[in-house]
């Protein structure tokens, strides 16, 4: 393999790598394929032992106002209607719409010094998820696909990573193989698509149909002995295995009792977090939960806008952390609250806040994280970061470090270009435990 890659020029290397992905027949071979890719791309460097085996990444789509959530500026013009409340950690306070998280402050590391380079949603979200600028020639993988690629699946029956939400314009697996693609779950209440057989079809009928497929297929398969055709046979087997897997119920949140469901909150982010917890229980590596509605250019303090979203986020995160703790999963699960950028200190003529890439806040909790602290700070109006500047790449480096993913390794993309998981990002040492 190594010789093959060395012989191949930068462009044929793309074909070789893609074909490894394609010829990786089924899940069992994938870790091996990964090893080949890694060792071929660079020699040596080993994966450090991390603490987080799973990540639940909550993405506040639309740009969450930092000033109204984790970086309040009470008593200033910039502060608006949001005030500050004290937390379970003496001396630390956060916004008043987050009373439950305030009580859990000992678990949270709030980064107030996030800063990014773009104020456009799509580009900003892309940078947050991938550590790279959106460019025309390369699609970069999001962190969940990286984790699946490098750490491998921990449950061979289920997808390695899942994105809960619309997942449109999501970078997905980028240049990594389709095996590492996130499984999309559009609605947490519906779960994974197409896992329910039509009602008329009984278990036996399904078996009959499977037998028929392989009978009808045998002539074609013996005529065309191709890895691509063979791969489909394997995907087919995997799909049958998934359908039969007892772990499939992880996608069905209706199996939770009413008390648990309402503890998380009967809203998108709450039910998304509940689904994420169920998936972590079944060892899915990375679950992103999208939560939109933060693009508050108008009437930010109207009940149905920022405040409602914040209250829901507060409930969902708190329930999630408690539940993970109770089940002994918090020590191996990293929880992240992220967004693409912040919002302006100035409240505009429509009583809203506009895009503000200069400063924003993100939160980390759980495995590998030292809670009970606030990292960095912004100026009195929340306009610019004064201390502890952290770029999206730095946040991703921190997450990767907490998971034991290598930051210094170079991976070769399809086009033969070298990339690192968090580009040039540096982990924020103070956050890591």
């Amino acid at each position: 393999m190594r010789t093959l890659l060395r012989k191949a020029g930068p462009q044929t290397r793309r074909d070789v790598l893609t074909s490894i992905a394609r010829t990786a027949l089924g899940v069992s071979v994938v870790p091996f394929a990964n090893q080949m890719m890694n060792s071929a791309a660079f020699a040596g460097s080993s994966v450090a032992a991390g603490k987080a085996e799973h990540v639940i990444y909550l993405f506040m789509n639309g740009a969450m106002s930092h000033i109204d959530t984790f970086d309040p500026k009470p008593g200033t013009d910039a502060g608006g209607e949001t005030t500050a409340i004290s937390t379970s950690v003496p001396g630390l306070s956060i916004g008043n719409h987050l009373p439950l998280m305030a009580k859990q402050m000992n678990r949270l590391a709030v980064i107030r010094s996030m800063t990014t380079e773009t104020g456009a949603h799509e580009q900003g979200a892309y940078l947050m998820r991938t550590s790279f600028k959106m460019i025309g020639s390369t699609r970069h993988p999001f962190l969940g696909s990286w984790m699946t690629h490098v750490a491998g699946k921990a449950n061979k029956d289920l997808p390695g990573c899942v994105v809960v939400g619309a997942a449109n314009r999501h970078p997905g697996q980028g240049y990594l193989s389709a095996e590492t693609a996130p499984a999309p779950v559009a609605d947490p209440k519906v779960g994974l698509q197409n896992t329910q057989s039509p009602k008329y079809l009984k278990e036996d009928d399904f078996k009959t149909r499977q037998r028929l497929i392989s009978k009808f297929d045998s002539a074609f398969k013996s005529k065309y002995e191709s890895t691509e055709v063979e791969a489909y046979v394997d995907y087919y087997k995997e799909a049958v295995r998934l359908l039969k897997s007892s772990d499939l119920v992880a996608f069905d949140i209706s199996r939770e009792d009413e008390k648990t469901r309402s503890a998380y909150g009967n809203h998108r982010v709450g039910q998304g977090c509940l689904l994420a917890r169920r998936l972590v229980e079944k060892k899915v590596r990375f679950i992103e939960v999208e939560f939109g509605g933060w693009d508050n250019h108008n009437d930010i303090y109207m009940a149905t806008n920022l405040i409602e979203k914040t209250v829901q986020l507060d409930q969902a995160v708190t329930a999630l952390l408690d539940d993970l703790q109770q089940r002994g999963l918090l020590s191996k699960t990293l929880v992240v609250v992220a967004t693409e950028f912040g919002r302006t200190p100035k409240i505009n003529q429509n009583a809203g806040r506009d895009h503000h890439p200069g400063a924003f806040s993100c939160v980390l909790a759980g495995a590998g994280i030292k809670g009970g602290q606030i990292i960095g700070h912004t100026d009195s109006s929340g306009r610019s970061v004064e201390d502890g500047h952290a770029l999206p790449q730095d946040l991703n480096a921190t997450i990767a470090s907490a998971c034991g993913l290598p930051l210094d390794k170079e991976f070769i993309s399809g086009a033969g270009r070298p990339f690192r998981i968090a580009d040039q990002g540096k982990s924020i040492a103070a956050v890591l435990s």
Partner: protein
Amino acid sequence: MRRLNSLLFVISMALVVLCDIAPAIAFQSPNKANDKSASRIPRGSGKIDAPAVKPVDTSTIADIQKSADRIDELIEANYKKHNIKPNASASDAVYCRRVHLHLAGRIPTFEEAYQFSLSKDADKRTKLVDHLLNSHDHVSHMFNYWADILRLQDNPINNNQIAQPYHEWIKKALSENTPYDQWVRQMITAEGRIWENPAVGFSMRDSGMELDHVDNTVQVFLGTQIGCAQCHDHPFDRWTQKEFYQMSAFLYGTQTRVGAGDKSRFPDGNPVERLRSEMRALDPSYNTNGLYSRVLIANMFEVWENRGKRLKLPHDYQYDNGKANEVVPAKPIFGDPVKVGKGESPRTVFAGWMTSPENPRFAKNIVNRMWKKAFGVGLIDPVNDIRDESICSNPELLEFLTKELVRLKFDVRELQRIICRTQVWNRQSQVREATSEELYQFPGPVLRRMSAEQLWDSLLTMAVYNFESFTRPSTTGLAETIDLDLKTATPQQVKKAAEVFDARYSTVAQRKLTLARNSYKNRTVLARASELPLPLPSDHFIRQFGQGDRELIEAANTDGSVSQMLTMFNGEITHMMLESGSVIYDDVINAKTLNDRIDIIFLSILSRKATDTDEAIAKAEIQDSGNAGYGNVIWALINTKEFLFIQ
């Protein structure tokens, strides 16, 4: 066998009787009769809401044969040189399926496959090619092909643009068979708003990304990647950063947006602010963001050329051949070193240079792409990264094809007609591993998985009648609705425009219209792939099978995944097929004998008759499971690799 047949005949007669008295019995269930009222599967109107397709010129057939013969000579020369044994000629059944998928983007219907198998006409393959090239199916299929290359999205650039008129214009150009060079020139030089000159959609797709626009244009039309040189000298190819900038200088004056604060354009002040505040004054509760704002922003997108705009080297320019912030004069990266003369438009000069028959890569790029489309592998592969040192598997052939395209005045459809006429394209297909390091010498076309769009359209072919009339609502009338003179517009006009837009052209309105017209269970839109929103949501059938999100050039793939299998097993489309009112269901139920029914099933799904083995398996199943057995056979065949792959 004969005995089995006669035995089964009795059984099938019994079934016929059963079906005659209860034609609405579903294949899904042996016992439960379906709703006997109207089928849930929509029937197309049969009316085709698209411009007529210009027919191919039947008088050129002798020239086509001559070209095809020459291609075969050049291919065979390489068989000898490389000791390749060519594959045998493909059967009529394989050919019929392949040519439908290749030119019409779908499998043949039962009727088409059956008629072709019966025909004794010696010219039937040629006639079928012409027939398909004259069809709307071909336009639809080529639209999907270009949509992936041109990254077509309904609302590109942060959802702010309305690009559908551009997409309709591309379909129109394909219907009229506009010469390729002319089509490309129109896109590169177009000016105006998208509803008055839809070709501007090409420049608008890269709005705000002037340098990426050059990179994309060169990659798509010259098959060359210069993007690396945007930031530094190209590490693998010969382009320097300076050359990238020189090339970019031609298109740098392309403006895609009007600034609301542009004093020279709006001397009386910012029209967007004015219209918003006037509206709020009229009605303080009115939401001037939402659609009101959308209509205003759509009017800000306009393409024109600012000839005075100069491109400078970047502030951190690091090479000796230029200074930071130095103005760069326009100069092509290769070929004829054209200059922009006084009073000339740099875009037009660039378009002329790029699409010239003299350009060493323009014609070559498209013939190489068309070859790859037909055979699965380009003569130079990958097709989007041609370099001076790229190895071509058959340079004489590439040269010949390039000259042919110039002779044909860039008639790409005629080139496809020639390729389909060659013996090599008529051969049986060949497995080629992606890991293969050997140059491919074309013993036959490569076995490939259907594209996501081919798969979807093929399933629809079996499911719905009047398939070609399942279109999306057009944007005819958009210009009258939305076009505003921002200097003089009144808030009432903007409000009116927003209302009409909301009712007729918005994504939500379009979805409502399509749902009302062609949907299954009032939630799944059944329109062919080229008539669905772009991009589709990531959980849509077509996306699951590898359609790209249209962010990157050629982002589509044919990789497999577990979720594809789940979709095929349990998704709505495959089960819809088994309901009364689907084409395949009706065809099967209306046939008289069991043998006929089995042939219909195989011809509808695999475009061939059942082999003896197939027949025995199918009969045994139908014997065991009764009516539901038909459903099981159909479902199983749709889930075979033979269905999924193009031979």
